[in-house]
């Protein structure tokens, strides 16, 4: 079990998945510490823990880039996809196990590159967006940013090819497309988006490094380039990236809610075709809402206001599916379920506060303020992280064969839930009042100092909650109670094998009955 060589050279999708989980949790810890350092710095006006604004900007860069590229996307499309998809479709492994191993080690290279930020003389300070002209004139190391993005993007692309092939060709007999778990649908859609859009991001970050180091002028208007082109390229990927995070995390939430409410997913086809399909269709037509105050053509801003507002349709259908799955269920308030219900409420706040941000004329007032930061933390960052934590708790008995501690699990959830609402509600509030984002110091907004101090307190609280959860996993994995093969009583295929599943997943190939459905919970 603890043979290091076996883990390094493993091609078993479950071990690759666990490697993804460990790597992304380390990334989460690093990026989380950056957030705490920023909150400490902002707790007073003027220098607090560092007198160097560049130091703060490096924390800010690391927090954003590592949380998104090193934690959320790898945890969702790396860990959950790897661990769950083959088990859910009754496959022995993924289609290309060695490619899978390559992708996880590329991911580690990317994370190590990102962490090296702290050990090089001129770390990148270009924010996770890397907008030129600043990224091409800064003394910070923009190449580091470009290479981190390229490597993590490449890891993600080969993962996408792998999983699309796996689900297309390796489903056990009897698992038709309308019997796939919602999580599998969501993750496939996320990989489709990755395959279409990651190359655009790769182009964008390559071009800024070429501008900076090779003397090209893609983004320099004095030599025929154009500044806005980068922002278009960047957000042409990075808005779909929000759905690359959203889709798998809402898929995880579906799995948790169906299993712990022991209920059929409400209107399965509505969720798959309307929800997941609708998001894939709209994902590439809304990026300009990140550029509402960037100087884009007016007709584009107006046009994408309509498409952005229309995102409410597929997302609304997915919310109806979730609430409908709760309706007349049999809900047990286990720790994973608390996290999943937490996501429902956090996402409700985050989604609704996004509506004004779809409207350019309202965004013109609150763009680039803490309102936006609060909104996207609710809708994507915190909701996604809660889904990841809930998902790890949900499949924890499957991965380890042991049970986590229910008391500490619930306590960790409630502490985190209180913490995030303190931080991000206040953040939205002072954002509307005018507090701009990415400020090392807010000397000309002294009225916000109290609010900043409350947010610092909230950040400390939520950090305690997350730390309790991670400790709970570590202790549970070492000496938790034996959990049995199917503690939640779920008919979904991953629970039909032993815990933890052996190499090859099932002692003998699984088959499913005619009336089997991953959410067909039966009495008794």
């Amino acid at each position, binding site marked *: 079990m603890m043979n290091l060589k076996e883990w390094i050279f493993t091609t078993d999708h479950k071990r690759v998945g666990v490697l993804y989980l460990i790597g992304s949790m380390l990334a989460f810890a690093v990026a989380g510490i950056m957030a705490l350092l920023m909150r400490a710095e902002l707790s007073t006006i003027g220098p607090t823990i560092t007198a160097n*604004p*560049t130091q703060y*900007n490096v924390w800010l860069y690391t927090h954003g880039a590592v949380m998104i590229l090193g934690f959320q996307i790898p945890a969702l499309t790396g860990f959950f996809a790897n661990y769950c998809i083959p088990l859910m479709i009754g496959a022995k492994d993924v289609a290309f196990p060695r490619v899978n191993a390559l992708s996880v080690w590329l991911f580690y290279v990317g994370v190590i590159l990102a962490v090296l930020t702290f050990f090089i003389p001129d770390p990148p300070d270009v924010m996770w967006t890397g*907008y030129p*002209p*600043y990224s091409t*004139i*800064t003394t910070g190391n923009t190449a580091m940013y470009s290479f981190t993005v390229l490597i993590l993007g490449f890891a993600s692309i080969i993962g996408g090819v792998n999983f699309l092939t796996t689900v297309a060709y390796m489903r056990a007999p009897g698992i038709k497309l309308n019997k796939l778990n919602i999580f599998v649908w969501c993750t496939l859609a996320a990989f489709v988006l990755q395959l279409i859009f990651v190359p655009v991001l790769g182009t964008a970050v390559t071009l800024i490094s070429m501008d900076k180091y090779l003397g090209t002028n893609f983004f320099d*208007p*004095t030599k025929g*380039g154009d*500044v806005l082109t980068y922002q278009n390229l960047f957000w042409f990927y990075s808005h779909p990236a929000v759905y690359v995070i959203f889709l798998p995390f809402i898929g995880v939430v579906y799995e948790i809610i169906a299993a712990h409410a*022991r*209920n*059929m997913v409400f*209107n399965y086809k*509505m969720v798959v075709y309307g929800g997941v399909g609708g998001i894939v269709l709209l994902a590439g037509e809304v990026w300009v809402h990140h550029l509402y105050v960037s*100087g884009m053509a*007016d*007709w584009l*801003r107006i046009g994408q*206001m*309509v498409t952005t*507002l*229309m995102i*409410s349709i597929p997302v*609304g259908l997915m*919310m109806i599916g979730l*609430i*409908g799955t*709760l*309706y*007349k*269920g*049999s809900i047990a*308030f286990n720790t994973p379920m608390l996290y999943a219900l937490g996501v429902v409420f956090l996402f*409700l*706040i985050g989604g*609704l*506060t996004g*509506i*004004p941000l779809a*409207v350019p*004329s*309202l965004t*013109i*007032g609150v763009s*680039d303020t803490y309102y936006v930061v609060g909104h996207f933390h609710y809708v994507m960052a915190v909701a996604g992280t809660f889904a990841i934590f809930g998902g790890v708790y949900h499949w924890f008995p499957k991965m380890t064969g042991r049970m986590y501690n229910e008391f500490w699990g619930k306590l960790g959830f409630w502490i985190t839930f209180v913490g995030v609402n303190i931080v991000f509600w206040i953040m939205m509030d002072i954002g*509307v*009042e*005018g507090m*701009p*984002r*990415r400020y*090392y110091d807010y*000397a*000309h907004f002294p009225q916000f100092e109290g609010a900043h101090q409350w947010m610092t307190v909230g950040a400390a609280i939520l950090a305690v909650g997350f730390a309790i959860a991670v400790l709970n996993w570590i202790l549970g994995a070492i000496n938790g109670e034996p959990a049995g093969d199917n503690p939640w009583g779920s008919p979904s295929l991953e629970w039909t094998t032993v815990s933890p599943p052996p190499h090859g997943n099932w002692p003998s190939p699984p088959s499913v009955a005619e009336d089997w459905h991953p959410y067909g*919970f*039966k*009495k008794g």
Partner: protein
Amino acid sequence: MHDKIRRGAAGLAALLLAAPAWAAGAKSEPKVVDPARDWDHLWREVIVDITIIGVLFAIVTAWFIWQARRRPGNEVGASPRLSPASAVGWVVIPIFVFLSIDLYTAANGWVLWNTFRDVPANRLEIKLEAGMYSWDYTYPNGVRTQNQLVVPAGTPVVLRMTSRDTLHSHYIPDFRVKEDSMPGRITYLWFNPTKPGEHVVTCAEYCGVMHGYMAGRIIVKAPEEYAAWMKGEETSLAAASIPAVEPATATKPAKLAAKKT
């Protein structure tokens, strides 16, 4: 293009907006166009709407959760099986509900957008060059100021903006408006300072190490005071440009530095 957008918006608004909003626009007395006031109005309306939706949604969800808690006699879920018709209905009806909310919001947002983009004819045109880390304003008569823009109350002000280095965004929280400036393009924003007073200007687009310190002020003066101030500026400008044979560059930075306070 603007006219087209305006006509489209008016059409949508006529279809979707309630009659009072329409009537208010048709009042005959001369109306002061104030985007900031309209922004506050629409913002409040949208916030009230999403609060109502959110609270209703949360209450229904909480009620479902409580009703469906696991207890003796409720060991397994019993969600109703949907007939094909009701399954389709659960897609089509929500789509219409969401789409109507979307289009209503879009129509309102579009009307406000036109307010923010159509600059009144009686405007004061100011050129703005942003740079790391200052706002440099130039008045039509050549007067220049830095980090401090003095404008007369009651006159709409439009800024034609560009940047000499990185991205910047001229954000005036009190007037609810910002727009990025960048090298190679000219962008604009306008606001209507109705009352004398002082307003913070701050940079809203990450522009470099000192981004958080890139601040300025807009000072709105009563028209007479503004005229007096401008006269003084013109005089000192003329005085500064008399020794044009001398190296003029030497006087300019000194003047800008003096303005900073």
